[in-house]
């Protein structure tokens, strides 16, 4: 128990492990498939302890075969199980898109409800010195796929609560975390909690501008808001948390008050999360001053100088805020 009553401090990875552990303990149909998820405990130790507790039949190390891994998860899910398939980095999810998008996302529709695939693809997006093919953020691709739910926690509590909800959802869910979130810890409710799918949350109330973002970028937004506050600029920060279905109402309510919107994502801007959020928010409240912040239109190098140059940071968010408020 930590200072805050009713919460415990957990590392991001521990929050994920706890959610999976609770669900596996409560539901024997929950299984884990992934590379090095067994005794090794996952690339970020986010599955540590599950293998010892639940055994090799329910926590399975797979070969490096992302396409079949997801196909197996779907087949097992459609047969009554609730697998989590771990795809280490989101870049490798490209190898799994055929089963995920051509089969799982459409199974319920194409069978008239006879088949559903309640499973979770857990994958890690974002850059952390890993280079052009290990740093991508592809959430926007998945948001446009009818039938998929996409969640993206920005902290330990939601990593726990969203994984819990994902494992109870009656269809395919892609759980997108972020490399730079793993070193962090946060307060997580001591009692069992579910973060509702489809609900964004206001992380910081403000008056002058709304910043809509998700995942690790919520922190970048918070830093930006701190600095801007010193100059009397008040930012309202919305953590989308679920990208599909998108909780546009929460964004729209905020934008209706502030009259200005900055979207922030680590991925590419073109056909990205921000483009969608900006369009739908204005559909709801009418034209507002708006700006998008995202990565430069280029691959993200492992080179520290180039990675830093490519990724959005507080300085760029602050610039964008000043631009829309100018």
């Amino acid at each position: 128990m930590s200072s805050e009553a009713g919460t415990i401090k957990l590392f991001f990875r521990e929050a994920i492990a706890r959610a999976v552990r609770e669900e596996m303990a409560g539901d024997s149909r929950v299984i884990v498939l992934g590379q090095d998820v067994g005794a090794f405990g996952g690339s970020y130790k986010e599955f540590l302890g599950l293998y010892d507790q639940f055994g090799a039949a329910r926590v399975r190390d797979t070969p490096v075969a992302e396409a079949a891994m997801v196909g197996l998860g779907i087949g097992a899910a459609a047969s009554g199980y609730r697998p989590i398939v771990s795809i280490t980095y989101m870049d490798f999810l490209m190898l799994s898109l055929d089963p995920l998008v051509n089969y799982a996302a459409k199974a319920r529709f194409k069978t008239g409800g006879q088949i559903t695939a309640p499973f979770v693809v857990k994958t890690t997006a974002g850059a952390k010195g890993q280079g052009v093919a290990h740093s991508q953020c592809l959430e926007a691709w998945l948001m446009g796929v009818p039938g998929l739910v996409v969640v993206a926690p920005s902290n330990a509590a939601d990593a726990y609560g969203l994984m819990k909800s994902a494992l109870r959802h009656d269809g395919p869910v892609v759980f997108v975390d972020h490399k730079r979130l793993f070193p962090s810890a946060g307060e997580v409710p001591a009692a069992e909690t579910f973060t509702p799918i489809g609900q964004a949350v206001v992380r910081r109330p403000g008056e002058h501008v709304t910043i809509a973002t998700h995942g690790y970028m919520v922190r970048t937004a918070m830093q930006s808001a701190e600095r801007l506050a010193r100059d009397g600029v008040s930012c309202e920060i919305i953590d989308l948390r679920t990208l599909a279905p998108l909780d546009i109402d929460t964004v729209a309510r905020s934008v209706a008050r502030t009259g200005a919107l900055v979207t922030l994502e680590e991925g590419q801007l073109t056909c990205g999360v921000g483009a969608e959020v900006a369009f739908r928010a204005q559909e709801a409240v009418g034209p507002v001053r708006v700006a998008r912040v995202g990565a430069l239109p280029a691959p993200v190098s492992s080179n520290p100088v180039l990675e830093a140059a490519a990724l959005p940071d507080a300085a760029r968010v602050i610039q964008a805020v000043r631009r829309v408020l100018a």
Partner: protein
Amino acid sequence: MDPLATLKSMLLIRRFEAALNTRPDHGFQLYSSGAEAVAVGVCAALRPGDQLLSSGRSIGPALARGIDPRLVMAELLGKTAGPARGKGGRGHLAKPDQGFFGAHPVVAGNISIAAGAALAAQLEAKGRMVACIFGDGASGAGALHETLNIAALWRLPLLLVCDNNGLSVSTPREAALAPARLSDLAAPFGVPAASVDGTDVEAVQRQTETFAVRVRAGDGPAFLECRSERFFSHSTATRETRSGAVMRGVLERCPIRKYAAKLQAVDTLDAAGVARIEAETEAVVAEALAFADASPYPDPAEALRDVV
């Protein structure tokens, strides 16, 4: 399965497709004619609790698995009386509650899904197995390699059935697959495999039963190659590339005529019997068509149902 039922099951597929062919306006179809013995022989060895998956060429597998021809016809013609209310249609037939997990028209796309269903069967440990029928063309896809490896490692109760009709659209199997026999693909993984005449329904059934014993026993997957024929062009929308001479040879290998002749040779069946079976089958098919014709198309609002 008794011989007459086997013959009838094959004949049903053939006549069903002939009947379906009288409704070209709904759109193209992929026929199983020429490969009836593959689906019927495999299904003869399956039990109610088992699951069958197939490629988009799924009329044979669906009917052989015992799905009501009326429902299959309705689904293929996009009518609400189909199991998917006409939303799936050709290439997506499914009736999992009756052991037909379903078709999937992405080539090789059902192979890893089938392994997942087999994983579920393994975890349930009720002696259930899963069979997946795919084509020779699908055998060049990476999904087969990844799935064979995992199924072998985990000893999944999975029977992989390659319905080798010698063609992928227009591409001859020899031009698309390097192995001498497609069943050789299983060898590196220590997966038992066999190649049989896919126009010989008894051979297919016998080999499936042999493999089914070890698959159910938990000894892991097996691979069955069946050399069948494709009596029509790839789909009713695809031009035929084989010469008349070639086609005559192809049609020679009719699994139904072959089996009927055999049954008559051993006096299990006489000309009258054949006539009776044909008449019964025609009646079933006619009823299926009438049933489908009578069923309405879905309401446009259905386009947004069962999405998430």
